[in-house]
Structure formats: structure tokens, C-alpha cells
């Protein structure tokens, strides 16, 4: 009875704390400007199924894709066993699904065990890749410190999770074969699970009943405690992508990547300028929502859209964007991954400040300058390689562009040569100093 109460309290705390932190993230994301992604629901579901569920873009790099797939499928399928653990924990029963599901139960748990072994191997390879092989994208500047620890912590937690599963199933298998397991005896000598029916006797075969029970309980409690720990670690970690990958791909940009968004605020002003009948001194009508003056472009996180902010929390820092970036490949400061990490870190900082000090709080900092420098922004060629390479459809380019817009339109901070190019367009209708009258000269030239 006491264990049921402890379990129930842990369960409540585990999910409650998680929900609280998820809600903080949700509030942070909703700080962003609105963008309409409510259209084309069918198409969006398709994109989500292919990219998040189906991992389509991961397969551009087949080896990491297969390793990642092992972890991913193991994680998803293990949730079934987790349901049973929760049911057992709350009822005081043991393996409550077994009798009802019969042979299917054996199949499911066997499937989980096989996947867990694959996941265990994949995790080891991932740890080795991260720490022993010098893969450039895992060893860049922005990966020093916490991001590196974070990456390793997740992998170690996964190893522990799998270890506990086999302690639990292995010791239980030995107990069951001796008729000592708490699970209902169905008249057989073994659970018949694919891995633990061999691993259990091999590892724990000679142990006494009390030792076996202790090992089994450490496995069971250890596993569920790790699950709660892991769950509550997610909102503080890049690993949150396992959840956000789904909404993030659902809300993908469905337009051609080459198309940059239209700035409606600018459109109104330009139309006014070009309309000979417009009254430039007209007072905006009362109740006109657009009368609220918005910044052109983005200086800080609240100037970005909620999708940009969702992108930043979805990023798992894999670095495919940065390793495909032409600016980064040629030694420039720009790293699209850093743009995403900076956006998230600034959003966390800003959100925390607002929660503590009220909604008018200003810490005097901003994403631009305090996190992202002008030099990074001007190094971008807008080639979309980062967007194309992201396995979960994150768009660093639109953040870069919005920050350029702020620099140019609000602060007139533009590289000299570009200022010249823009005034050429205004004066000559071409980015170079040629007379518009000469535009057709090529027709007569030999």
C-alpha cells in the first residue's frame, strides 16, 4: 500500500512539474508575433507524417539515420511498457497486461527488448561519435560547455534506462522460472521474452530469491524514476525535440523556400506613397489595430514569429544546418545552429525576466548585439542550405532576414557597398550605376 502511495505521489509530481515547465515554454513561444499556419491541414499532416514520424530528411545521412531510427522506434514502442508500469504502480499488481494480452504481450515485450538492445548499441556509437571521433559539427564553438554536457547526459540517461529494463525483466524471468515472481503464473516456466529469457539466467541465474527481488525492484523503480527524471529534463534540454518535432513540422512553411515573406506594414506605407490621392497626414481611424506601431524587422525575440520561437525550442543542435552553410564552410562567423541556440537562450532569459519582474520589465538586452552580431547576419547568402538540411524543418534564414530588416530599416545600419547598391536601384532601377535608358543597348551591340 505504501508503495502505491509513493508511486502515485511521484507520478503526480513527475507529470505536474513537467506540465508546469512545458507551460512556461508555451508562454515564451507565444511572445512571438502572429503568423498564420492554420491553412492546408491535410498537407500539414502529410508533412508531419513524412518528416517527423517518418524521419524522411534524416535519411540524407543514412548511417546516423539508421542509428537514430533504432533509438526513436525503441523510445516510441517502450511507451507501451511504461503504461504497464504505471498501471502496476497504481494497482500494486505485477505485469497486469500479461494475462489479458496473452501471446501478444510476449510479442510486444520481446519487440521492446530487441529494440532496446539496438538502442543500447546505437547510444554507445553515438557517445563514441560525439566524444572520440572528431566530427566537426559536434566540436564547433557554440557546442562548448553546456551543449556538450547536455548531449552526453541524454545518451547516458538512455543507457541507464535500458540497463534498468534488463535488470527488471532479467531478474523477473529467473524469479518466474522458479515460481517466485509476483506476476500471475500462467502454468509456464518462462515469460519467453526475446532477450531476457537468455540474459536473465546468464546474469542473475545463481542469485538468491531475496537478491533477485532486490535486483528486480531496483530495475522497476529505477526505470520509472529515470523516466520521470528524463521527462523533466526535456524542457531544459535540446532533447525536447522528441516532442516538438511533431508540431514544428506540422506548422512548416509550405511555400517555396525561395519566397520571403511580404511585410504588410511596409506595403501599407508604400501604397500610400504611390497613391497620388492619399492624404499623408490622415489620422488612422480609431480602433484600427494596425495603428499600433510595430518595429520593422526583429531586434529581440518578441519581434520574431511564434514559429521562429518554436523552431528555436525544437532545435536539437545536430548542426546539419551549420555544416551545409557556405558562409560557415568558408570560415565566416555565421552558424545557423548558433542563431537558433541564441534565439532560444535569449527567449529563456527574457521569459524568466518577465515572469519574475512583471510584463513591462526590460533588462536592457536584446537578441541582436548581445547574442547575434551584425557580422554574422551579413555573412548569409540566403541560399537556403540550412533550411533544406534541417531534419525537422527549422528555418534559421527567416530569423537572419528579419534581423537584417531591423538593422536596415530601423537603424540604417547597412554595409556601405549595399547602401550604394540600394541607392542605385532607387535612382537607376538597377543595382549598378547604369542609366535606365541604356537597358536595351545590348540589342544593337555585336
Amino acid at each position, binding site marked *: 500500500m505504501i508503495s502505491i502511495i509513493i508511486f502515485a505521489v511521484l507520478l503526480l509530481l513527475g507529470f505536474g512539474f513537467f506540465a508546469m515547465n512545458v507551460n512556461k515554454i508555451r508562454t515564451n513561444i507565444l511572445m512571438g508575433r502572429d503568423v498564420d499556419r492554420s491553412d492546408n491541414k491535410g498537407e500539414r499532416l502529410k508533412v508531419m507524417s513524412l518528416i517527423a514520424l517518418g524521419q524522411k530528411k534524416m535519411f*540524407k545521412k543514412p548511417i546516423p539515420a539508421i542509428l537514430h531510427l533504432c533509438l526513436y522506434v525503441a523510445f516510441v514502442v517502450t511507451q507501451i511498457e511504461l503504461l504497464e508500469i504505471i498501471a502496476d504502480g497504481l494497482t500494486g499488481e505485477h505485469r497486469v497486461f500479461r494475462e489479458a494480452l496473452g501471446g501478444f504481450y510476449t510479442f510486444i515485450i520481446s519487440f521492446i527488448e530487441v529494440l532496446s538492445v539496438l538502442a543500447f548499441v546505437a547510444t554507445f556509437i553515438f557517445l563514441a561519435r560525439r566524444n572520440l571521433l572528431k566530427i566537426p559539427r559536434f566540436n564547433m564553438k557554440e557546442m562548448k560547455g553546456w551543449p556538450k554536457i547536455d548531449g552526453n547526459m541524454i545518451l547516458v540517461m538512455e543507457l541507464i534506462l535500458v540497463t534498468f529494463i534488463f535488470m527488471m525483466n532479467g531478474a523477473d524471468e529467473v524469479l518466474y522460472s522458479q515460481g517466485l515472481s509476483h506476476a500471475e503464473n500462467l502454468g509456464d516456466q518462462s515469460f519467453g521474452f526475446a532477450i531476457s529469457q537468455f540474459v536473465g539466467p546468464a546474469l542473475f541465474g545463481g542469485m538468491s530469491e531475496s537478491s533477485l527481488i532486490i535486483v528486480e525492484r531496483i530495475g522497476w523503480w529505477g526505470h520509472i524514476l529515470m523516466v520521470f527524471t528524463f521527462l523533466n529534463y526535456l524542457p531544459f534540454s535540446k532533447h525536447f525535440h522528441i516532442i516538438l518535432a511533431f508540431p514544428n513540422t506540422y506548422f512548416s512553411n509550405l*511555400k*517555396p523556400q*525561395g*519566397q*520571403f515573406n*511580404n*511585410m504588410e506594414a*511596409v*506595403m501599407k*506605407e*508604400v501604397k500610400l*506613397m*504611390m497613391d497620388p490621392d492619399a492624404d499623408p497626414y490622415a489620422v488612422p481611424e480609431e480602433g484600427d489595430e494596425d495603428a499600433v506601431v510595430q518595429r*520593422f*524587422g526583429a531586434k529581440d525575440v518578441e519581434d520574431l514569429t511564434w514559429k521562429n520561437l518554436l523552431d528555436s525550442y525544437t532545435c536539437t543542435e545536430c548542426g546539419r544546418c551549420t555544416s*551545409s552553410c*557556405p*558562409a560557415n*564552410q*568558408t*570560415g565566416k*562567423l*555565421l552558424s545557423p545552429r548558433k542563431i537558433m541556440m541564441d534565439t532560444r537562450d535569449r527567449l529563456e532569459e527574457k521569459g524568466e525576466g518577465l515572469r519574475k519582474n512583471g510584463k513591462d520589465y526590460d533588462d536592457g538586452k536584446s537578441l541582436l548585439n548581445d547574442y547575434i552580431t551584425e*557580422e554574422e547576419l*551579413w555573412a*548569409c*547568402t*540566403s*541560399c*537556403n*542550405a540550412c*533550411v*533544406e*538540411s534541417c531534419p525537422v524543418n527549422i528555418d534559421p534564414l527567416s530569423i537572419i532576414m528579419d534581423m*537584417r530588416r*531591423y538593422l*536596415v*530599416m530601423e537603424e540604417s545600419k*547597412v*554595409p556601405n*557597398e*549595399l547602401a*550604394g*547598391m*540600394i541607392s542605385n*536601384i*532607387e535612382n537607376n*532601377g*538597377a*543595382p*549598378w550605376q*547604369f542609366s*535606365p535608358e541604356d*537597358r*536595351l*543597348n*545590348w*540589342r544593337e*551591340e555585336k
Partner: protein
Amino acid sequence: MSDLMKVPTMAEMTANGEVPEILFWVGCSGSFDDRAKKITKAIVKILNKCEVKFAVLGAEESCTGDPAKRAGNEFVFQMQAMQNIEVLNGYEIKKIVTGCPHCFNTMKNEYPELGGNYDVVHHTQLIQSLIEEGRLQVAGGDTFKGKKITFHDPCYLGRGNNVYEAPREMLSKLDAELVEMRNCKAKGLCCGAGGAQMFKEAEKGDKEVNVKRTEEAMEVKPNIIATGCPFCNTMMTDGVKNKDQENNIQVIDVAELIATAADL
């Protein structure tokens, strides 16, 4: 002026009471840059050879605004766009072919929200469809026999708008060997000119992007780097010079290759 170099303007056509099948949007580079003008002329010759009834805007054409938008100046972009749209709508233009992927992307994707709705194609798409319809015969000839050609994908044609096959199908008509770079199609590396970089010095780094891309091209030992964008053409030409390869590698637009193969 030979028949193949007939270039009527919209104003001239309208004065004669004629309506073109398609408007050829030449673009700033194609109008003013000496190298790009040759690409423009190749496109003109192909259009005339296929008896496509086309016109250009001439002095009425103006920058689409692409570099201003990519440089962050939405005001200048929209002013350019709206002026162009006024001209295009004034002539009741329905279909446009551009000689530049940046003009193509901007007019196809970014003009509709500002009131400009046209069927916009890139010159590689148009030429490919002319070949497919049998309006253009590409004999192949001996010009490209034994030559290795690699195609450099322009970002705003490829990743930007998912046009990967049209230029490749055109090149497959030549009697040449088409070789792909390690990074091609969706993985293609930028030439370094996009996002208004064409008009400024690069930020501090350890290499120029165009040199890096040229090195990638050199890995497959091509005789010709084929391009579909006047800016890529400039960047790759400079890259080839930087690597002292001018005598071994030519940088040529797909339209020029087709015009040569069709004896134009």
C-alpha cells in the same frame, strides 16, 4: 540585325497592335553585364529560332527589387515591385520568362501578394519545354563531343523553387558527358552571390565561397561548368580564374550551350 536577333519591345508591339506569347524579362545583369549579355542573346536566338512571339520591356524594365529585399530593405523592394507590376499589368502580361533565377523567384513568388499575378518560368524551363515540344532541334554536333559538363545549381532555382531537372534534361541533349558534383541539386553549394552578397565584400573568413565551389567542381574534372544564373556565372568564372584554370574550364550558361548545339 539578323532575323535571330529580332528583339521587339512591348511598346513597339503594342503600337503595331500585336500581343506577344511571352514577355522576356531580361534582368539587370542580362541587360548591363557584358558577360551576361551574351546569355541574353543566346536566349533571344533560341526564342526566335523557335518562332516564339516574345517582347522585352527595354527601358521600361527595372530591377525586380530582389537584392534590396535580401539586403533587408523592404521599402525599396516594394517600391520597385509595385512600379514593375504597374507596367506589367498595364500591358496585360500573362506569361514571363526570365534570364535570372532571382528575377524568376521574386516575380513568381513575391509579386502575387503585391498585385502581380503572372505565369513565370525560368529560361531553362522554357527552353526545355521547347525541346520537348519538338520546336527546337538540338543536333548535338561535334562541339561538345568528349566534353565533361557539370551543372552548378543556382540556389533560387534549385532549393528555392525545386527546379532541378529542366537544366539537366537540356544538357542531356548535348553530345557530352554530364557529371554531377558531390554536392548537387538540393545539396548544391551556393556560389556566394546570393542574399545581396554579389554587391559587397564577403565577411572575414578563410576562403571565398566561389573558390570553394570551384574546388568542388574541379573534383569532377569538367571541361565546362554549366550555370543557369548570371550571378553564378560571374562567381564561377572568378573562381576558375582564381584557380588558374581558365584554359581548362569554361563557365557557360545552359542557354548558350543549347544555342551553340543548335548552330545558332
